[in-house]
Each structure stands twice: as structure tokens, then as C-alpha cells.
């Protein structure tokens, strides 16, 4: 490995498809989500920070960084400081797996789909620990709910991902993307898997139909009620990066990753553009789901996912098993 390939690798991780790019993309997605959500509700959304309010998420992030960081008494200090860091680092680590500028991500090795799935569950466990760490009634109820919700949507999510892997006969993201060169999986047999994946992603991100762990009306801010200042900024950034990761994962698994008609000269540039356009399409669907439903109670979520999502995922698995 020549010295400059080291440099390129670190630059890749730090700048292009790595941290800075993901950071900007995360803030852009949050702005897009809030703007589209507002447009759906016939209102304006962020407007004053920067042109059309595009810098609003950045303004929120910096404001939170500069705010006072209160650590309440009786709080488990180690977990209280560790959980924001973990949630941020793990979500960035997850985005490195995504193929953005070519059909394989920066980190691409045999079986990296399993790592992606493990990271998904880790992120949810970290929110549970974040809730338990702050010794506050609302946070404990919020943490308990996030775990109950995890039990609900985790199994259908896994089955839908496994059915995609089965379809592509491999567990590495690179092969999955390549095998979609012919027809994207969403057009192929995996349409049901896409729907299940979307609902599970909505639950993973704790957005409206499934935002019980931080239900504002019932338990104020749920698990992140005691976090403030830098810690809250890290949690919100982690949530946004997780949004980027899940949209990216939906794109790679079902919409053929960055593949698309390509001019030989500028592959990486065009791949990134396709990746962004497709994930914005997925984001639009997530926002419409957010605007469409009311929040469900915890027992309804678990019964919904076991009664509707799981059978759908199993049917999807059987279809793939029979056809492929």
C-alpha cells in the first residue's frame, strides 16, 4: 500500500463518501424532510436560515452545541456520556458500508450485509441504554417502549433483508447491487419486501406512526428528555445520519444502488447522483407516511407488526424461495 493510497483511503473515509459528505447529506435530508412535510400540510417550513431555510438544520446543530450541557444528579455518568458518542459513531460506521460512488462501499468485504443488520439493532439498543441512563420516569418509560417496539418490527425487517440476500444469492452488498443490473429488485419479486422495509425503517427512526419512545404528548421527550447541549446535538445528528443510512440501505437493497445509465468517463460522479436521487425518492415516501397516520399505542404497534408485517415478510420470503 503506497503512502498516497493511504492518503486517498483516509480522504475517502473523512471527506468524500465518508464523514463530511454524510454530515452534509444528513442535514440536507432533514431540511428536505421538514420542507416536504410542511408543504404537505400547506405551510412553509424552515425559511429564514439561509436561502429557503436550507441552513436551518445546521443552525439547530450549532445552537445545540453552544447550549449548556446539564448533567442531572443521580444519573449513570458513564452511560450518560457514552451513549451519544456510540450512537453517532455507529451510525457513521454504518454509512461507510453503503455503495455511494461505486457499486461497493468504502468498507466492502464478504458478508457486510450482516454487519449492517447488526448495526441497525445496535442503534436501537443504544437508545434503550440512553433512556435507562438518565434516571427519569419519562425516560424509563420511553426506553421500555423503544425495546417493546424493537421486538415488534425487528423480525419482519430481518426477513425482508434476508429475502433480498436470498434473491441475490449472497450476503455482500456488492453482489446484491451487481445482481440488480438487470432489473431492480423493487420491480422484481421484492415489492412486498420494500413495503415491509419502509414501515420497519419508519419504526427504527421513531417517526410518527411509531414515534412512541419520544411521544411528545405522553412522556414529554421520552428517552432523550434529560439530554441537552452537545449530547442532544449528537443524538439528533445520529438520528439524521441513521435516516441517510436507512434510505441508502433501501436504495441498495431494492432500487439497484447507484446503478443507472452511465457515461464511461464520470462513473463515480454519476453513481453518486443516482444514489442521491433514489434515496430522496425513498425519503419522500417516508415523509408521506409520516404525514398520513396518527401515532399508535404500544400494544397496537406490536400487534400490527406481528399480524401484518410478519406475514407479508414471510410471503415475500416464500415468493423469492419459489421463483429464484
Amino acid at each position, binding site marked *: 500500500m503506497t503512502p498516497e493510497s493511504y492518503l486517498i483511503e483516509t480522504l475517502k473515509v473523512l471527506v468524500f463518501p465518508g464523514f463530511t459528505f454524510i454530515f452534509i447529506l444528513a442535514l440536507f435530508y432533514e431540511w428536505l424532510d421538514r420542507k416536504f412535510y410542511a408543504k404537505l400540510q400547506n405551510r412553509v417550513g424552515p425559511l429564514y436560515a439561509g436561502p429557503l431555510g436550507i441552513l436551518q438544520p445546521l443552525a439547530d446543530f450549532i445552537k445545540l452545541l453552544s447550549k449548556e450541557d446539564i448533567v442531572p444528579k443521580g444519573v449513570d455518568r458513564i452511560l450518560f456520556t457514552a451513549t451519544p458518542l456510540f450512537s453517532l459513531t455507529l451510525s457513521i460506521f454504518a454509512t461507510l458500508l453503503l455503495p455511494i460512488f461505486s457499486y461497493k462501499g468504502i468498507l466492502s468485504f464478504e458478508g457486510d450485509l450482516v454487519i449492517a443488520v447488526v448495526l441497525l439493532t445496535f442503534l436501537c439498543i443504544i437508545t434503550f441504554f440512553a433512556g435507562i441512563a438518565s434516571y427519569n420516569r419519562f425516560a424509563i418509560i420511553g426506553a421500555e417502549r423503544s425495546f417493546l417496539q424493537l421486538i415488534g418490527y425487528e423480525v419482519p425487517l430481518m426477513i425482508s433483508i434476508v429475502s433480498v440476500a436470498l434473491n441475490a444469492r449472497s450476503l455482500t452488498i456488492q453482489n446484491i447491487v451487481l445482481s440488480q443490473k438487470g432489473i431492480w429488485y423493487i420491480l422484481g419479486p421484492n415489492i412486498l419486501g420494500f413495503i415491509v422495509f419502509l414501515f420497519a425503517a419508519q419504526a427504527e427512526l421513531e417517526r410518527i406512526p411509531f414515534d412512541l419512545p419520544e411521544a411528545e404528548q405522553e412522556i414529554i421527550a421520552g428517552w432523550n428528555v434529560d439530554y441537552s447541549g452537545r449530547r442532544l446535538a449528537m443524538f439528533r445528528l445520529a438520528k439524521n445520519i441513521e435516516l441517510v443510512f436507512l434510505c441508502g440501505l433501501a436504495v441498495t437493497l431494492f432500487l439497484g444502488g447507484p446503478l443507472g445509465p452511465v457515461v464511461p468517463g464520470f462513473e463515480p460522479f454519476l453513481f453518486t447522483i443516482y444514489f442521491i436521487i433514489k434515496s430522496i425518492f425513498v425519503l419522500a415516501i417516508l415523509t408521506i407516511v409520516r404525514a398520513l397516520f396518527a*401515532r399508535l399505542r*404500544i400494544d397496537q404497534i406490536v400487534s400490527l407488526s406481528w399480524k401484518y408485517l410478519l406475514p407479508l415478510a414471510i410471503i415475500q420470503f416464500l415468493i423469492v424461495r419459489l421463483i429464484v
Partner: protein
Amino acid sequence: MSTFDIPIGPQHPALPEPLLLKLEVEGETVVGVDFDVSYMHRGIEKLLETKTYFQGLPLVERICGICNAAHGLCYTLNVEKLYDKEIPPRAQYLRVIVEELSRIHSHLLWLGVAAFEIGFNTMFMYTWRDREHVMDMLEAITGNRVTTEYSQIGGVRRDITPELAEKLLKTMDVVEERTKYYIKVALTEPTIAKRTQGVGYLSPEDAKATCSVGPVIRASGIKFDVRADDPYAAHDEVPFNVITYDSCDVFGRVVVRAQELLECVNMIRYALKNLPSGPFRIKLPMKPNAGEALTRVEAPRGELLHYTLCEGTPKPYRYKVRTPTLANLGALRVMLTSKGRYVVNIGDVPIIYGSIDPCICCTARVQFIDVKKGKTWTWTLDEIRGMSKKVKA
């Protein structure tokens, strides 16, 4: 199972009412509830005794921001009973129109807040956008969006000009069309149905025992509406039918309030069509003759009651206001405690609490005590404002 209590406290981000709900919780189910209303006690009944009847009207209108037309109407009807003079029929019709308009704006506001309680932000945004039509009409007719100051002692302050009536009819068509859409959504939307059916159960016997009023009792199948039972102003001439629903839960209250919106629209149309001509106001002396009077009005939240004892002086000897929310507190406690198979989940508490459409500022009035010096004094609204000026300056 160890229970610990969750305070859904007076300063809650989502519930705009200063009421403290102390919930005893086992895991996710609510076992016991106790509430405390003493955060917004403004001493209005004591204050009314220091003001004349004419000065008391603006104060009574500011008891509650949303149902102030009902408070103003009940106050003026109450004082007019002391004079026992004949109020011109045109004034009575105009009062009914403004009262029904403020009922539409109150029910639409509630539909939005209830949707917000269960997390349905889109419905919240839509209902509050459509409420603006009604607020603009209220502003055009009475001169102010919320504190309408419309019904005065002896009649009404302003007349409705023909083009205002024309604009009002057009707004009513828009409101009716939007309400029909909301009724369709409220009845069939799967998530709303899941969150409201079977939640906040109040059996007819409990409703009667706790003397609950308004949409809460009508959603338990009991036909009790002051406009029909004890008609006031022009309600005996303006036809309408009392909406009841027998599902005894939050879903029933949503249906009752939504259907009532349609009733209000038809009432306004009927009242506008055959509005009697003649004067809309008569002059009444400052000093009523002695006696006592009791008036009941159907405010958007339920039966509102004003009682006054007058000894012939321009200032009331005693003025009692009983707002509908105080009557519904008993029903709220019955709904919030889990009994047998009926289980209340923490997730349900905001929507059950919201379903009685609480207006705690109506129910309480502020007084101060200085524990150190042991001195007590009552501050009026203006002195509180004066105090805030000092802090700011």
C-alpha cells in the same frame, strides 16, 4: 407490581391546560389518578363584586379565551333577567348567530387539538387552517377574533350588514364542505379509529352520576342539551336536533362534536334567512332592581351556569360562574382509572383528558399569598400586568 406516579404536570409541552394530573402507573396501565386545579385561580368572582354590572362584562368575557361568546351571552341574559325588560328579537337572533359561530370555531379548534394529542399533526394543521375562515368572519362581525364583546346588556353591540350576511353564507358553505371531509376522515381513518375506539369509557350510569355535561354526556347516549331543554335567546325558534351517540368513548365524542358542527352551520343559515327587523339594542339604566337570577347557556364544552344575587345596587352582591369543565372533572376521573377489563394506557391519557375539551382557565382564578409576612391580597388582572411591566422595565 410496584406503582410509581407520573406527573402530567401543569407545564406540559402538549397540553395547553394548567391542570396537574398525578397518575399512578403500573408499567403502562394507569391505576389511579388525582388532579389539582389550583394553578389558575384568578379571583374573578371576588373581582366581579367590586365592579358594576356594565364593567363586569369585559371581565367575564375574558374568563375563557375560546368560549367567550358563551360567557358574554350568559352574563348579559343573566343581568337582563334582573331588569325583566323585553329584549328586541333581532338582538336575540344576532346573539344566536355569533354564539353558533364561536361554537364552530371552538369545535374545530378541539378537533385539531385532539388530532394533535394522538400525533396526527396533518389533521391539526388542516383543521386550524380551515378555522381561519370562521375567525375572519368573527373578526368582521364583532371587531375582534376572540374576545367578541358582542352581546351587551340590553341587546347587541353591532348590526349585521347585508354584505356581511352574504360573506357569512359563503363562509358557511366552505366550512360545511370541509366539515363533511373531516367527519369522513374521523369515522374511517384506521389509526384514529384504533386510538379512540374503546378509549375513555364512560357508561351512561357513570355519566349521570357524575353530572357530566355537554358532548361528554351526549356521547354516552343521554339527550341533554340546554338549547333544547331550557331554550334561551332565540333557540326556541331556531330549529336544530340534539346529536347523541351511544359508543360512550372518545370516538363518540369526536362524532358528536363533528356532527354538531353541521348543526351549527344549518342554524346560522336559518337564523340569517329569517332575521327579524327592528332595533338591535335598548338602553337599560345602570342600576337593576333587586332579585336573583340563574341562567344556563350551552357553551361549546357543555352547560355553563351564571347565578347572581343583586340588592338593587349597580354592583352585584354575589356572582357565581360554574363552567362546564368543572362538571366534567368527575367524569374525567372515572374515565382515567382502569377497572376490570377496561385498561387505561399511558398513551391514552392525553386523548382521554383532551376528550372533555378542558378549559381550566375557566375553572380557576388566581390569588396570591405572601407566606412570610402572612399577609394575603388579591391581585387583579391589571396589577398582574403592572407587575410584569415592572419586571420588564
